[in-house]
């Protein structure tokens, strides 16, 4: 017993001829259907190319527009011809002109001989398919589709809309339970003849002529009525992308195809000379005949679809520019923003970088230049430290920095003197961890050697800027991890907040902090705030600092403050 191939061809007829010859010479009859829209000259050439083979037939030509009945009637006619002319055929395999056998024909014949009664056809009820593109699954069977989806798209959509609106439904003929599946099948003579000689075929055909994409449902539905044993999978390896169009195989897929152990693959790029040369030759090293295993290829194409639909989080580039909130992650990785810490602690950046093992920058958004870690002038990805370049597009700057340093957590200082453009962007970013000591900007003012009226003006301005920032951080749109302490609360007990933050950053999990950063001297700070009040300014963000009562943990200027006791 042998297997017969039906080939539906419309382009690259020379490749189709090559494959047909391959099968026919190995004693597998082939029936070729050529789309009626193919030029007569090309068709004549194909016939001439194959005329030396007596087990090749050409069936009557139908116009096969995608999604229409033509493809089904072409398959029907070709199948009838196959069953009539080649009595030795037990399985009939429907393939396209751009299909390619990946394993020797003998393998396939042997495989089918072991399963003489099995029909290989993907056939799934409409409720269970997840892959229909365009949202029409059951409606394929209940609406009318007189317009071409490809050429008359607006009419197609409008007519579907109208039918839904009116509530029009076609009657599904009795006994038909719509199933869908890949159009590439392999059926036994018994099953196929039962479908073709179905007593109600005229009625059924008339019904399916108006169904949308009948080639994915006609055989798939009828096989359920007549077959004794349906194995619901296609023997043809065929992957579809997110638009429902088949992925194409090129020369660089050769090894993947070899290792897939599938019988037939589609669709092959016609000029993939290496692939055709490799699989059309006979001297192929025989591999162990195993079950088809397209796992690797599945992964490759699933990844491609994911890249096209979701993209890489945090990447902004020439072909990915997501609208707001469609970013799938505004930035590429987690990072931390520290407000006020560098004012409260001396050498905070050095300490943090030691304690957390991350990259700690200064004020990235400072007005004079970008303060990268280590005072660098150019940073990862050749980012410049020019403030003008950064402020030209702060979003590109920050997302670029985080993208360039993927795998290494970035921390930076922020404050009311910095460029505030990105406040909404950062607070709406789930990757950001924002820790604020509110009012800490007053500490450098307190230590500064400036005229008091000037200090007062500065304090008022910075308080306003920080108040606006805090309002953003307290809004309901925030996705970042936000923690806010007032300066007074923080200096009461600085280690616990620090421990929490470090734990969250945490590559060194489970370890207690052993060394605390040294706090700036705050003796007299309460009086300083009182002086501001006396001058008519109301410092509110620092919390409650009583006059004359200096904060509790008086850090001694000598010796290091250790936590381990």
């Amino acid at each position, binding site marked *: 017993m042998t297997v017969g191939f039906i080939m539906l061809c419309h382009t690259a007829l020379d490749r189709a001829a090559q494959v047909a010859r391959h099968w026919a010479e190995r004693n597998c009859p082939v029936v070729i259907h050529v789309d009626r829209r193919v030029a007569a000259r090309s068709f004549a050439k194909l016939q001439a190319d194959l005329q030396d083979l007596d087990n090749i037939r050409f069936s009557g030509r139908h116009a096969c527009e995608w999604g229409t009945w033509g493809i089904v009637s072409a398959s029907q006619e070709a199948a009838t011809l196959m069953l009539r002319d080649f009595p030795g055929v037990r399985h009939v395999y429907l393939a396209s002109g751009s299909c390619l056998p990946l394993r020797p024909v003998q393998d396939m014949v042997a495989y089918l001989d072991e399963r003489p009664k099995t029909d290989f056809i993907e056939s799934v009820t409409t409720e269970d398919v997840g892959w229909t593109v365009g949202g029409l699954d059951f409606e394929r069977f209940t609406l009318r589709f007189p317009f071409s989806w490809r050429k008359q798209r607006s009419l197609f959509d409008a007519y579907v809309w109208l039918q839904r609106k009116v509530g029009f439904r076609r009657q599904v003929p009795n006994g038909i339970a719509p199933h869908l599946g890949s159009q590439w099948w392999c059926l036994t003579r018994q099953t196929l003849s039962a479908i073709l000689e179905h007593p109600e075929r005229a009625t059924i055909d008339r019904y399916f002529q108006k169904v949308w994409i009948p080639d994915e449902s006609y055989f798939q539905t009828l096989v359920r009525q007549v077959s004794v044993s349906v194995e619901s999978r296609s023997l043809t390896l065929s992957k579809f992308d997110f638009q429902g169009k088949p992925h194409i195989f090129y020369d660089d897929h050769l090894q993947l195809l070899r290792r897939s152990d599938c019988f037939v693959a589609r669709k092959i790029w016609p000029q993939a000379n290496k692939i055709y040369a490799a699989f059309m030759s006979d001297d192929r090293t025989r591999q162990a005949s195993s079950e088809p295993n397209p796992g690797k290829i599945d992964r490759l194409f699933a990844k491609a679809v994911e890249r096209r639909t979701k993209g890489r989080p945090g990447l902004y580039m*020439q072909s990915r520019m997501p609208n707001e909130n469609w970013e799938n992650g505004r930035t590429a990785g987690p990072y931390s923003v520290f407000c006020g810490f560098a004012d409260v602690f001396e050498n905070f950046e050095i300490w943090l970088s030691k304690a957390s093992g991350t990259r700690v920058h200064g004020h990235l958004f400072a007005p004079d230049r970008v303060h990268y870690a280590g005072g660098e002038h150019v940073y990862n990805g050749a980012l410049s430290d020019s403030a003008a370049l950064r402020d030209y597009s702060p979003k590109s700057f920050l997302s670029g920095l985080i993208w360039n340093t993927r795998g290494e957590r970035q921390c930076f200082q922020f404050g009311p003197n910095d460029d505030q453009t990105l406040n909404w962007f950062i607070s709406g970013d789930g990757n950001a961890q924002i820790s604020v000591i509110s009012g800490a900007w007053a500490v450098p003012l307190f230590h500064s050697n400036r005229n008091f009226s000037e200090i007062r003006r500065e304090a008022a301005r910075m308080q306003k800027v920080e108040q606006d920032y805090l309002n953003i951080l307290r809004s309901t749109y925030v996705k970042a991890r936000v923690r806010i302490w007032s300066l007074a609360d923080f200096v009461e007990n600085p280690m616990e907040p620090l421990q929490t933050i470090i734990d969250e950053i945490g590559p060194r999990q489970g370890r207690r902090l052993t060394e605390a950063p040294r706090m700036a001297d705050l003796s007299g700070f309460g009086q300083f705030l009182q002086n501001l009040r006396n001058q008519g300014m109301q410092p509110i963000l620092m919390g409650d600092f009583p006059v004359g009562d200096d904060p509790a943990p008086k850090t001694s200027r000598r010796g290091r403050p250790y936590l381990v006791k």
Partner: protein
Amino acid sequence: MGIWARYRLRLARKRWRFRAFRKRRELVSLANRTRAIRPESILVFSTLRNERIRLPFFLKYYRDLGVNHFLIVDNDSDDGSREYLSEQPDVSLWTSRHSYKRARFGADWLNWLQMRHGHDHWCLVVDPDEFFVYPFCDTRPIRALTDWLDASNIKSFPAMLLDMYPKGPLDAQPYREGQDPFEIAQYFDSGNYIFQRNARFGNLWVQGGPRARTFFAEAPEKAPALNKIPLVRWSRDYAYVSSTHMLLPRGLNQVFDEWGGEKASGILLHAKFLDTFAAKAEEEMRRGQHYAASAEYKAYKAGLEAQPDLWCKWSEKYINWRQLEILGLMSKGNWA
């Protein structure tokens, strides 16, 4: 976008096309081999001036990718470029003594040639110092790409300009004829690009790279545009608006995905910064035939005198397209 704005863009497109039609008189045909163009041919369009030393590698590079025919406008070269090109069997050559600037930096001439010869072909518009890199370009010819674009109903393909530069002063390693320029200019900036939308034409405006970093750090708005859409399934109704940065109708500029996904894109490796650059900059400043009164070249000259090395320790050394893909400069999209 309202009907009025759309109508104005339509008028603008008609105007560019009419302008290209008028400018056809400035072109003198020197070698017309356009009869060799078959319906499926892939075409390269280019305009150049005094690029003789670059031409052998340029032609070889694109022939190897599978380009079938070159249509080139020579803007009054005097270094033998014209003679060399007119001898090539797959080159059709025109020459023009007219102003490059007044032909909108060559765009009018090429718009005309594309209108005349590019209709219904895949057309790649590149300068002689731009080298097109696309996903899988090491294993698949350019026809694999255009076939896939056809099958996916994609009409235009973006490729950002990526400035390549050597380590050390530009004139340290002289470029030999026929040499791969990226043996010298091996380095590029991997992640300092700025992306903004252009609402009117619907394209992305990309700036940055070594030129913004060194020459325009204090005036970033003047940094040259790097976004390009060089590969288009051309129709005689289309028109390039300014260089290959953007096209009309504006739908062709929608080469980026707005809903989080990545569309496929390529890169134009830009071999501008070789030892030939100083002489070129000198000449272009004298002629004043470049964009914004050659302000760009003035900035280069000043910049190069102060800081002759574009290289920095974060510069990335070029390996292949996969590296560019991983760095996020280009994307495979759903082509696999």
